[in-house]
């Protein structure tokens, strides 16, 4: 009978993440946001750091300003590219700060240093298709007031930020009702198809020319300047002084035209960011860098390992915690309602929000993603354990009791084996949801199959999206198949007969 009990201890294979740190070189961690320009700048910073003797790690394509800023404050990254407008309007929002020197002082108070501007001003602009704007005679943002029916698709970040849609609407008294938040890269496609007519974009976007867009003049001067700068931690100076001074070589070296070119190289010519960055460094700073292009296979293996690690640890943890919780819920009805209520509420939190909630607790990378996935996996297992135990017929429960078996033995020999199918089905559901949700982990730097999906969306590269989506779907199917096999081993034949 022992084998029925085994399923509690099904130990998913554990994968260890090797960390390659070469010798005594200080490790410098660089972050970037999930848009191409930030990734290129992040790549520039990490390659310079590398050439200055550091062992540099680039955590690319993280979910947003808050995530990066908090990671920088906590020391999970040492540096990342940012824009002065974002710093004053968002990071230091409400402090009424403007002007480079004021910003620098406010940041210093939090242990963060800011480089001088790198050269370009990547401000927000509001844009339309040239042909549409021409037809409607729209040249300035004020002109939009005359066309309240236009459909607007703003990037999610723009919808929320201090200088974004709400204040733009107030400043210009814009009457538009149909305003949606969407991914920036999807917005371009919406514009092409005519689903929306107005989007926000950055003045250095490669797409401006590609899609033939018109930037509307900010006639009331709403948008602040967005000079690109490098933010880095005070202690980088101590930890790796050579790196800190090397980074500053980028100051003033990237004018707007150059940045548009770099963006276009990546987005339109499909050259990897690392190569674009390396070529730029060699041409402008005569810094030689050694870029090893990852092969497709090694990248796939890395994403697979990261993804499996996320799923395995979070699911295993959820199994270990949920089964006892389910048992408790079934045995003590008062506590049971509370437990089921709480895990039910967790499930209603949108997965992206849950991931972001974890960052203040655990920072970025694998651990917060694992915790979020763990929380998500609780409900199906707890509920199915509870239901499995709860549905055992009275006669069977009493027969076990009448034999004189003590409660723990009844649970082990009768009740859990009889619930095995239900519990296993709960674990299977949790695992399949988990494999899918883990793709969002890439947004907070956890890697996995979400990484190529994220990059693919950013670069509008369907092949890349499929490189993440197909293995993720395959893994979900594999997991499902494995659990069906496990059912044969773990659910008694006597119970399977009954169901047939």
């Amino acid at each position, binding site marked *: *009978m022992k084998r*029925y009990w085994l399923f509690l201890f099904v130990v998913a294979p554990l994968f260890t993440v090797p960390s390659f740190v070469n010798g005594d070189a200080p490790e410098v961690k660089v972050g970037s946001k999930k848009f191409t320009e930030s990734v290129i700048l992040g790549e520039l910073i990490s390659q310079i750091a590398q050439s200055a003797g550091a062992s540099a790690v680039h955590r690319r394509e993280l979910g947003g300003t808050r995530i990066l800023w908090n990671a920088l404050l906590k020391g999970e990254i040492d540096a990342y590219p940012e824009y002065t407008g974002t710093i004053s309007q968002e990071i230091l929002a409400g402090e009424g700060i403007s002007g480079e020197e004021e910003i620098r002082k406010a940041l210093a108070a939090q242990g963060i240093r800011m480089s001088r501007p790198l050269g370009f001003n990547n401000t927000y602009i509001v844009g339309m298709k040239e042909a549409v704007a021409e037809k409607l005679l729209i040249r300035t943002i004020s002109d939009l007031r005359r066309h309240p029916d236009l459909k607007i698709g703003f990037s999610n970040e723009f919808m929320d930020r201090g200088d974004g849609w709400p204040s733009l609407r107030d400043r210009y008294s814009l009457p538009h009702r149909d305003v949606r938040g969407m991914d920036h890269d999807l917005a371009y496609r919406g514009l092409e198809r005519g689903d929306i007519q107005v989007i926000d974009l950055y003045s250095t976007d490669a797409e401006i020319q590609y899609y033939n867009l018109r930037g509307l003049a900010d006639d009331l001067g709403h948008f602040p300047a967005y000079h690109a700068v490098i933010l880095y931690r005070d202690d980088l100076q101590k930890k790796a002084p050579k790196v800190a001074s090397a980074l500053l070589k980028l100051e003033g070296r990237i004018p707007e035209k150059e940045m548009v070119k770099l963006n276009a190289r990546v987005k339109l010519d499909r050259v990897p960011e690392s190569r674009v960055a390396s070529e730029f460094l060699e041409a402008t700073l005569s810094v030689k860098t050694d870029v090893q292009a990852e092969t497709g296979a090694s990248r796939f293996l890395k994403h697979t390992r990261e993804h499996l690690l996320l799923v395995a640890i979070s699911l295993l943890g959820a199994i270990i915690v949920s089964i006892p919780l389910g048992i408790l819920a079934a045995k003590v009805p008062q506590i049971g309602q509370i437990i089921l209520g709480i895990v039910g509420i967790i499930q209603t939190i949108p997965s992206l929000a849950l991931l972001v909630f974890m960052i203040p607790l655990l920072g970025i990378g694998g651990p917060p993603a694992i915790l979020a996935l763990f929380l998500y996996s609780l409900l199906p297992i707890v509920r199915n354990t509870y239901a499995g135990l709860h549905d055992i*017929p009275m*006669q*069977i429960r*009493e*027969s*076990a*009791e*009448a*034999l*004189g*078996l*003590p409660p723990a*033995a009844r649970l082990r*020999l*009768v009740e859990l*084996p*009889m619930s*095995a199918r239900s519990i296993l089905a709960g674990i299977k559901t949790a695992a399949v949801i988990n494999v899918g949700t883990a793709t969002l982990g890439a947004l907070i730097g956890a890697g996995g199959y979400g990484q190529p999906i994220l990059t693919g969306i950013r670069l509008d590269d369907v092949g890349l999206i499929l490189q993440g989506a197909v293995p993720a779907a395959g893994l979900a199917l594999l997991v499902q198949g494995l659990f069906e096999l496990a059912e044969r081993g773990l659910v*008694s*034949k*006597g*119970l399977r*007969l*009954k169901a047939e």
Partner: protein
Amino acid sequence: MELNYILELSGVSKTFGQTRAVQRMDLNVEAGQTTVLIGPSGCGKSTLLRLMIGLIRPDTGTIRFEGTELTPDNVLALRQRMGYVIQEGGLFPHLTGYDNVSLMAQYLGWDDNRIKARLAELTDLTHFPTDGLDRYPAQLSGGQQQRVSLMRALMLDPDVLLMDEPLGALDAMIRAGLQTDLREIFQTLGKTVVMVTHDIGEAGFFGDEILLLRDGQVVQKDTLETLVSSPAEAFVSDFINAQRSPLETLGGGES
């Protein structure tokens, strides 16, 4: 004289919400006898058995088993000296016949040989096909399932056997066969048996003594003959007459 009583209930009541399932019951079960509990559905028969084996606690009164009062502390140990065949079988569907019967013995650490020897005795006694022990309950007929239930109850050689409508779910033919087998087994073992049935014929077939219950109280406690010849109240004859078979009525065989 006390020793003659294996189970003694005094002043036992049990209420479920508004339902008074057992009311101030005094009942002594004599050793070596087969006592049958009978009465209309819902009169408290199953509740009485569940009280005796300590599955539920009485609201008032005491229950003694072999002179010891049942308490939450000793009930697990005392149950090992009682065998219980629950209404509707209650076999563990995830275990084979063998494991169903020997579950408790395995838990108590009996070695394999001892278990096998005991099972050989029991399959003999109950006329159960040995190869049926490898099957799961879902693969056994209704009659075979009841035999496994009976073997499970007898496994630890208990002092008393409590059976709740052991034949209730079986069709007439199988039932007749099993009735004969059961009575033979009771006679062979000479065990104390408390059996619940709602069938007066079955009660007469097994019972040394029959307790007729109504609304959680004993209406009359006698042999079948006495119940028929001198009913304590009209309810007794009504209950017996209601169960008279149509054939008997046709033949006009009764006064």
